[in-house]
């Protein structure tokens, strides 16, 4: 097995201390991903390194960071693909979010924006579940249809988007404007709009996007679409929302 000796330059920050970079050298298999290298740093060198990791296969969106300045998911990014073989591999937190500690950022803003669309989405597999518990033979519970709890939508997720925040980090407008809904928020609005025919709800969703800090604040940098690891194409969704908003304005003007 090929082993790589990788110097990892990690951004460090703890509250009350000045930010700095620490470099650690770890030995990892050549086929390993960047998250494995960060794991190795934590396990072998410094357990105070704070970072998020989860599924290791780009489903949870937890581990998003910047690798050599570019937003990526380290769980699907091989070290060999981003390391030139000698210079330290630089690893930093996402931009445009407050830093909590080292590579961990406060993603409240992301979820706040996405929940503005109040969108519930049920994966196709879940829709076919009978929601009984007889399969699971849980004691005390009769096999019967379990009613969905009232706040079920809190647990639902967006189809392609894994809510990793990479698009927000890449967006130049997000860097300056705290009021901007951002690529993730606007893509969520677009997704919610596609999933409903209720005219009142459509009107509301489009209304959310129609403000000065909605679709119109986007400056077409397209960095979000470039950086997205899941091909959500937030920029395309923003442009589609714009097209619909303009079409509606036009028909209103024509008095239809």
């Amino acid at each position, binding site marked *: 097995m090929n082993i790589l000796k990788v110097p990892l330059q990690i951004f460090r920050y703890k509250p009350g201390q000045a930010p700095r970079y620490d470099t650690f050298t770890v030995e990892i298999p050549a086929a390993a991903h960047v998250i494995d290298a960060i794991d190795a740093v934590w396990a072998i060198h410094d357990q105070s390194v704070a970072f998020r990791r989860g599924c290791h296969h780009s489903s949870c969106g937890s581990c998003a960071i910047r690798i050599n300045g570019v937003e990526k998911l380290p769980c699907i990014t091989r070290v060999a693909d981003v390391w030139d073989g000698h210079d330290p591999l630089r690893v930093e937190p996402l931009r445009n979010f407050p830093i909590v500690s080292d590579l961990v950022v406060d993603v409240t803003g992301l979820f706040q924006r996405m929940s503005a669309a109040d969108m519930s989405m049920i994966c196709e597999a879940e829709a076919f579940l009978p929601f009984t518990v007889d399969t699971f033979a849980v004691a005390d519970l009769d096999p019967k249809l379990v009613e969905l709890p009232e706040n079920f939508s809190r647990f639902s997720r967006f189809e392609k988007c894994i809510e990793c925040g990479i698009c927000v980090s890449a967006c130049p407008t997000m860097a300056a404007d705290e009021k901007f809904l951002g690529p993730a928020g606007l893509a969520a609005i677009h997704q919610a709009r596609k999933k409903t025919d209720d005219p009142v709800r459509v009107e509301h969703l489009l209304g959310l996007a129609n403000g000065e800090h909605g679709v119109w604040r986007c*400056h*077409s*940098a397209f960095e979000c679409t470039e950086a997205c690891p899941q091909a959500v194409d937030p920029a395309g969704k923003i*442009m589609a929302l714009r097209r619909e908003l303009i079409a509606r304005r036009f028909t209103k003007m024509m008095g239809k």
Partner: protein
Amino acid sequence: MWAYALNRITGIGLVVYLYLHLVVLSLLLRGQAAWDVFVTVARSPYVLALDVFLLAGILIHGLNGLRIALTGFGIGVGAQKALFVVVMVVSAVTLWVAAIKIFRI
């Protein structure tokens, strides 16, 4: 990212130029002598060189602006990168031709 940065930089540059140009036009109010002196200065090669810069800004901002208008209406979003390349190439070619014409005046 380049498209965004270039559009912003050229935009700011052009606003500055706009107001400079408007101020210069006040020389018209000082009569023929003042204006004709300005025209002589404006024909000097240094000013002409600056004019080439101005034209570069106009071409990049204008053509990229058209690209942004198109993609902003949802047209050609998938081709946005290619469109930017086209914008820069057309700008460069036009600038080259215009620069030759300008320095022949």
